[in-house]
């Protein structure tokens, strides 16, 4: 029986899940838009963020510190990966890029499994996230509401960077035509490093704040990665608003289908993607790009 209370609860669950998907997909879509690389290791970066947050919280009992260190660790790893590995693949054919990032994902996952073992762990909610809040329509876990608020703040910050700063101007132009940006006197490789690092950091941060909601294990990045691909296809590659719309659509689709037919949640997600591909192949907010 679907009751109003259940419907509201699932709608809200979809919103929280969607917000997290937006955050992870944002890095993936902007990296793909500017660098032309589909980063199959993006899910692993999300997973590493969750572990980094888990360890930091375990030792400091401060969730704020966990968020900061989780984001910082993944930013650092992202920068090292871009300098040491990924940048050598910008000019290579797509199959090489897919192989190297896919291989990288496996290596990262197995390193984490080696250190922490395969059993799943759980980060406790921060004290300020305990309990429930009355949303009028329903009582809802306080922490989930806070996650929604935190993600919204991060997305606003990201929006401001993209649309109100010089770096953002370069990134938006680079999504469309990196060669022309280069011709206009801008060192795109340096911007690419920043983009990759920030994209990784967003994924890592999402991992930290999602850790109290889901269980933390080495394979937790795989389903998120697949869902993020769907988000990007729905929203359109390289688009900020596309990632936002795609993430919320994906979150609600998963959540509402789970309510009536849990086994079909993933199927519905792909059905939604197929529908968008038929009516608007470039995605809801897709732009034409020049490579």
């Amino acid at each position, binding site marked *: 029986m679907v009751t109003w209370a259940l419907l509201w609860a699932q709608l809200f669950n979809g919103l929280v899940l969607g917000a997290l998907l937006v955050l992870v997909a944002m890095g993936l879509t902007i990296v793909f838009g500017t660098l032309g690389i589909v980063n199959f290791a993006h899910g692993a970066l999300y997973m590493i963020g969750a572990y980094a947050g888990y360890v930091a919280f375990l030792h400091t009992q401060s969730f704020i510190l966990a968020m900061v260190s989780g984001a910082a660790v993944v930013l650092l790893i992202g920068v090292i990966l871009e300098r040491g590995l990924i940048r050598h693949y910008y000019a290579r054919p797509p199959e090489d890029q897919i192989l190297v990032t896919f291989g990288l994902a496996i290596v990262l996952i197995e390193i984490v499994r080696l250190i922490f073992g395969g059993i799943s762990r759980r980060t406790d909610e921060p004290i300020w996230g305990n309990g429930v809040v009355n949303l009028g329509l329903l009582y809802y876990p306080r922490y989930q509401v806070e996650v929604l608020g935190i993600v919204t703040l991060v997305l606003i910050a990201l929006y401001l960077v993209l649309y109100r700063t010089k770096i953002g*101007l370069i990134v*938006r*132009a680079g999504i469309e035509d990196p*060669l022309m940006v*280069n*011709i*206009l*006197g801008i*060192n795109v490789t340096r911007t690419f490093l920043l983009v990759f690092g920030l994209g990784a950091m967003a994924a890592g941060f999402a991992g930290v704040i999602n850790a109290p909601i889901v269980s933390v294990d080495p394979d937790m990045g795989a389903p998120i990665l697949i869902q993020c691909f769907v988000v990007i296809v729905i929203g359109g590659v390289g688009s900020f608003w596309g990632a936002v719309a795609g993430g919320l659509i994906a979150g609600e689709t998963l959540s509402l289908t789970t309510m009536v037919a849990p086994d079909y949640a993933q199927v519905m997600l792909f059905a939604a993607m197929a529908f968008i591909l038929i009516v608007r192949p470039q995605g809801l907010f897709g*732009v034409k790009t020049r490579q």
Partner: protein
Amino acid sequence: MSLLEIDAINTYYGEAHVLFDISLHVEQNEVVALLGRNGAGKTTTLKTIMGVLAPQSGAIRVNGEPVQGLAPYQIARRGVQLVPEERRIIGALTVEENLELAALSAPQRWSLSRIYQIFPRLGERRKNHGNELSGGEQQMLAIARALIRDAKLILLDEPFEGLAPLIVRDLLKVCRLLADEGRTIIIVEQNVAAALSLAQRCYVLNNGHMVWEGTGAALKADPDIMQTHLGI
């Protein structure tokens, strides 16, 4: 010292040898036309100067400093600016953002109002996105991007291609203004009359080889060259 000096460059697309021992020079305050039939190698020459393609041999010097093998952004910062054949306006950015992007790394930039004085049309459309502009407006913006950087050497690749005669006239006026104030330009143009009305000297390319050089007047006086290499 020449502003630009190219010494026997050879450029390839993969295996395909496209430029053969091309040499040319451009002096300060000079407008030089680079002419030739379709596929002669004009665009390839400009791309090689800009660093989009690296020559396999030969030297390119800007103000006496070798630049071959440098990235486009490094060559742009030495004052060279390509206005590409396809214009390559960033469609997702507004006119103003396109200009600001171009000005970002320029050591000496022009103000937006100075640009809008030369191209009032761009001023009217400054909040429009690049993909909302007409072909003529896109070409104006493409040239304006080079100007806002205060480029010392502008490489114009077929600036009048595919534009209505009225717009060509306006653009030609702007180009003449730039030439008169002493800006150094290499212009590639199928419209030989338009190119010669701007240029003091010209080079003629054929199949990747430099086949002729001299003044515009000498070229006009040589119907053979005009006939064989330019088809006029």
